[in-house]
C-alpha cells in the first residue's frame, strides 16, 4: 500500500450557482476525504472564486482528485500547493473561553503568548481571535480546554504559494 499524504489544493472556479456543490459532490461521490474546505470570491470583476481544499490520500488518489477537479466545467485551474513548492497556510479561529479568577488570567496570558487578540469580553468570558497554521490553532485550543473553553469557530485553511508566481 502506498502511504497516505496530506495535500493542500487550490481551485480557481467561476463563481456561479452550484459550483461548490459540484466540488463537494465530487468528493463525496468518489469517496475522497475533505479535511477542510474554504471558498470565497477573489476576483469580483471576473467572478472567480478560490476554493482551498485540504485532503488526504495515496499519491494515485491525489492525482485522481486533481484530474477529477480539472474535469469540472467551471474549474479554471487546479494547483497542488503541496507539490508545487513552498506555500503558506493560514486559518482563523474565534475561541470562546468562560471563567473567572486565576483561570481567566491564565487564558489571557496564554493568548498573549500566541498573539491571539481579545475581540469580545464580559466579566465571565472572552472571545479570542487568532490566526496561524492549523497546528498553532490546535495547540492554543488544547491549552484553553482546561481554562473554560466553551465554543470554537474556525475558517478552515486558506493557502497561497510563496514567491512571485500566481495561480
Amino acid at each position, binding site marked *: 500500500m502506498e502511504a497516505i499524504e496530506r495535500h493542500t489544493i487550490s481551485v480557481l*472556479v*467561476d463563481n456561479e*450557482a*452550484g459550483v461548490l*456543490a*459540484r466540488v463537494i*459532490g465530487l468528493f463525496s*461521490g468518489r469517496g475522497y476525504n475533505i479535511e477542510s474546505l474554504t471558498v470565497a470570491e477573489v476576483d469580483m470583476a*471576473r467572478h472567480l472564486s478560490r476554493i482551498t481544499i485540504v485532503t488526504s490520500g495515496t499519491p*494515485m488518489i491525489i*492525482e*485522481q482528485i486533481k*484530474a*477529477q477537479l*480539472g*474535469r469540472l*466545467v*467551471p*474549474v*479554471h485551474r487546479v494547483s497542488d500547493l503541496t507539490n508545487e513548492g513552498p506555500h503558506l497556510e493560514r486559518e482563523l479561529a474565534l475561541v470562546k473561553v468562560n471563567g473567572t479568577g486565576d483561570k481567566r488570567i491564565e487564558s489571557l496570558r496564554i493568548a498573549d503568548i500566541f498573539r491571539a487578540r481579545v475581540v469580545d469580553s464580559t466579566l465571565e468570558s472572552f472571545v479570542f481571535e487568532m490566526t496561524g497554521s492549523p497546528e498553532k490553532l490546535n495547540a492554543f485550543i488544547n491549552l484553553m480546554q482546561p481554562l473554560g473553553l466553551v465554543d470554537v469557530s474556525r475558517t478552515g485553511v486558506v493557502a497561497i504559494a510563496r514567491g512571485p508566481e500566481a495561480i
Partner: protein
Amino acid sequence: MTQELTGAGIVIKALVDQGVDVVFGYPGGAVLPIYDELFKQNALRHVLVRHEQGAVHAAEGYARSTGKVGVVLVTSGPGATNAVTGLTDALMDSIPVVCLTGQVPTHLIGNDAFQEADTVGITRPCTKHNYLVKDIADLPRVMHEAFYVARSGRPGPVVVDLPKDILQGKGAYPDGIDVERRSYKPQTTPDADRIEQAVALMASAKRPLFYCGGGVINSGPEASALLTEFVRMTGFPCTLTLMGLGAMPASDPHFLGMLGMHGTYEANLAMHDCDVMINIGARFDDRVTGRLTAFSPNSKKIHVDIDPSSINKNVRVDLPVVGDVKLVLEAMIAAWKRTKARPDAAALAEWWRSIEQWRGRDCLRYKNSDKIIKPQYALQRLQAAIGDRDFYVTTEVGQHQMWAAQFLRFEKPNRWMTSGGLGTMGYGLPAAVGVQMAHPDALVVDVAGEASILMNIQEMSTAVQYKLPVKIFILNNQWMGMVRQWQELLHGGRYSESYTESLPDFVKLAEAFGAVGLRAQKPDELDDVIREMIAVKAPVIVDCCVDQTENCFPMIPSGAAHNEMLLGPDDVAKPVSEEGMVLV
C-alpha cells in the same frame, strides 16, 4: 440580426441552429410553451416516447449511430427524474446528449410546487454538466454551450433546466454566440514528445497488443479507419472492448475479439502476456481488467485518452498520452513512418504463433443441439442472415448481450449500441428506436432477453406510431440469465428470484401493439423466422425460445485473473475468493 423571441422560441431556434433534426420527448405542464413552438414549425421532428427513460436511450441510440448529439425534451419533476437512468447511462458510456427539462417558474422554485424536483441537484452527479436558466438573457448562450460541452472533449450528457416563466418570457437571440468558456479547455492535440516515446516503445515490443475502446468510436469514423491502418501497418494484434466493437473490422485477422470477463481466450491471454500494451480510448474498466494485481503484469503500458482523469485511475500506466484519438493516431502513424520503425520480426512471429495456438482453442464453441435452440446458434444464424449487409444492433443487458458481442461481427464503427458502463436493462428497444429514426432504411436489430425487454416494452408503441421497422430478437430462456448463471456458479445454485413466472406471450404482445410477432421453438425453424423478421416492413418481435440452462463462456470469475478464465461448463471454477465474492 438580433431577434426578439420567447424563451421557448429561443430554445427551438438554438436547436435548429445546432443542426438538430429530431427530438425525443414527452410533454407536460412545465414544457408546454416549447411544445407550442414545436407545433408551429417544421424544421424539427419530435418523437413521442412512452416513458422519459426511453427518450434518453433513444437519443443515445441516435447519437451513437450518427456521432451527433442526441436531444431529449421532458417535463419537470417526474419527467426529469425518469430521465435520470438514461443520463447516467450516457455519462458512463460517454454519449453526447442534451436533455432539456421543464421546471416550475422561478418564483416557485423551492416551494415544493406541483411537479417540482431539484433537477440540477439530482442530475449533477449523473451529467457532464448542467444548467438552471434563471435569466432569459443567459438562455441563448446556455443552449449553445450545452451542445458544445456535450460533444467536446470526452462526450457526455448535459441537462438544461428551463423554468416555465423563462420559456414564456421574451428575450434577445443574438447572432454569433460565443460558446468558448474561459474554463473547460479539453486537450485534443497530443504532446509531440509523448508520441515519439510511444512509437519508440512500440517499435521495441516483442509481444505488443492494441487494446482499444469506445474512445476510438467517439473520435469519429476517421479514427476507426486510422486505427485499422495503424494496426495493419504495425502487424500487431488488436483487441477491442465491448464499447469499442466496430472500431476495426471484425473480419481483420489482426482482431482477436473482445476482451474481458466474457472476452475471447486469445484476447485475454494476449493481454496477460503482452510486453507493450497500447491502450487507445479505453478506460481499464473492471470488466476488462479482472483482478487488478494480476492484470497484464509484465507490460509497459501506453494509454491514450482525451480525459486526463481516466489516466492512472485504475491501472498505473507508463506512458500517458492525453488527446483526441484521431489526432493521436495521425501523429503516431506519421512518427512510425518517419522513424521507419521495424519491430523485431522474429519475436512478433513467435508472438503470433502463441496467439494462433490460443485461437486454436476455439473458445466460443458450444455444444449444439438439433432439438433445442442454443442462444449462440440463434445469433450465428442471425449473423449469417444479416452479415452481407450493413446492419445496426442494439442490445439489452445480460447473457444475450455478451453472446451478441461474441457472435455478431461488426465491420464498421457506430453499428453497435449497448449499455456498457451502467449495464441498463431496457436500453436496447428505445435505443433501436433512436437508431432507426437516424437511419430509416437500415436494418436495426435489438438483441434482447425476455426480462430486459419488459423494462421498456412500452416503446413498442413508439416504434409502431412512427412506423420504425425495428427487429426485436428476444433470446427467451425465461430466466434472468446472467443472474441465474452467477447463482449457479457462485451461490450454490440457489436461484433466488431469477425465474420469471407469468411471462407474456410475446407474439400476442407484439400484435397487441400493432406490430408483428414471430416465434421459433426448434433449431430448424430459426432461419425461416429470421428471414421473415428481416422481410417484414414493420416492428417485429421474435420470441426465440432458447435453452434455459445455457451459460455464457468464456468467463473470468470475479476476482480472477485473465489466465484463470473458464472456457466452458466442464472447467471447474476454483472457489471464488472472499475478495471476489464482494465484486459485482
